């Protein structure tokens, strides 16, 4: 179980996060939504160890991991994907996925890691392109590859940063199906997302951020109809 309490972080004059709380249970998909610049990615950076918060704590499975470096956070079973996919372009797809198996808490020897990559590759739909250099993949496939690398680390919590963005209707359904399978396996998922249809379809709970503050939390239906949320997205007509 992930528990984020009162996390704040500023960059010079800008308050990126102010006193944000977030809880994600095993087998639960928590969507984090909010317009651009509301601090969503900063929140993931604090959880995954890229940034140390100015205030507040991050607890995972009962342990305080505030400020831990990314590799130790990864070893606790927390996987991460990024808004712009960060993949090893000169390595093949198999080798990219193999990195997860190699460097997770109980890392596997190289041959075994590369063999295990096959199965995870197929699970995300890259089974037929395992020996292609990752640099040749399209943007969408690179996002899938990143998820596969995270899954190889045997995570119990997944932090996905706009993983469903830019998908066609068909691709979206495949992606949602995959997330449902991961939830069924008992994994917790924190989904930073803009594709509202996906949030509506998969999220168990929705957290709304605006200008670094959590302004609402609740069931998807209830939250997405809430006037204040509609306002932050469609904008208030505060007269002009």
């Amino acid at each position, binding site marked *: 179980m992930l528990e984020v309490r009162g996390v704040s972080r500023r960059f010079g004059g800008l308050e990126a996060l102010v006193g944000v709380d977030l809880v994600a249970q095993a087998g639960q998909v928590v969507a984090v939504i909010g317009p651009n610049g*509301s601090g969503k990615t900063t929140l993931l950076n604090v959880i995954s160890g890229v940034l140390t918060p100015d205030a507040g704590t991050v607890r995972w499975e009962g342990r305080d991991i505030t400020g831990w470096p990314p590799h130790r956070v990864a070893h606790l079973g927390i996987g991460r994907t990024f808004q712009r996919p960060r993949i090893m372009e000169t390595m093949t797809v198999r080798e990219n996925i193999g990195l997860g198996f190699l460097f997770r808490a109980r890392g596997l020897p190289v041959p075994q890691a590369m063999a295990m990559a096959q199965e995870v590759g197929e699970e995300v739909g890259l089974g037929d392109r395992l020996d292609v250099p990752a640099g040749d993949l399209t943007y969408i496939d690179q996002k899938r590859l990143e998820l596969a690398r995270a899954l190889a680390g045997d995570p119990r919590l997944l932090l996905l940063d706009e993983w469903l963005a830019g998908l*066609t209707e068909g691709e979206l359904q495949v992606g949602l199906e995959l997330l449902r399978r991961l939830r069924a396996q008992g994994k917790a998922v924190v989904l930073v997302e803009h594709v509202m249809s996906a949030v509506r379809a998969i999220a168990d709970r929705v957290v709304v951020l605006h200008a670094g503050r959590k302004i609402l939390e609740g069931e998807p239906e209830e939250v997405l109809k809430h006037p204040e949320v509609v306002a932050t997205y469609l904008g208030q007509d505060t007269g*002009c």
Partner: protein
Amino acid sequence: MLRVFGLTVLYRKHRALQDVHLELHPEETVAVIGANGAGKSTLLQAIAGLVRPQPGARIEYEGKSVLGWSPERLARAGVVLVPEGRELFTGMTVYENLLLGAHGVRDRSTVHRRLEWVYTLFPRLRERHGQVAGTLSGGEQQMLAIARGLMARPRLLLLDEPSLGLAPLIVREVFQVLQRIQAEGCAILLAEQNVRMSLRVAQRGYVLETGRVVRHGTAAELERDELVQRAYLGA
């Protein structure tokens, strides 16, 4: 004033923009709306010369083709981009940021006249003129970014997500200023998530969804259009 034909932009083999057509008449404000990741920023960056479009695109500004022009050449020709994330000179004062906005203007009195004009539009910047830009609040930084753009007396202002991370009160102030800017003869192409505010300020609008223009019409038409609602809230 501005005509864009067949604009396609690839990002890592992914079609960020797909065959976009767009027009802008002098002294007109046009809004480009769409969910995040729909390609709004890419469109503005392509027009401002920061991103290279695929062959076959045509971008005409005041009748001339400006395809392939560098951002600095476009800025000097009056096409000024206020980018997403503002790109201020964070280590320099408000005053210096504004002076740099008028880079290339030799005549000092013109620069000072523009400075006065900008200070009247954004009174708070006059108060903060000696302060280092990085220490301003989010709203003030956004105002400074727009003000710096205006110092070049643009004929076409490209505004990328001005309401980014701003509290509603400040968003209203920013949009009021946009109206006054347009009234003084500057065409504005506004890429914005905040649909209702942008349709309030704009005369016409284009709706982008995963890189394609899915709807185009006057502000009034778009406001009632259920597609716009769906594009945002997946109703």
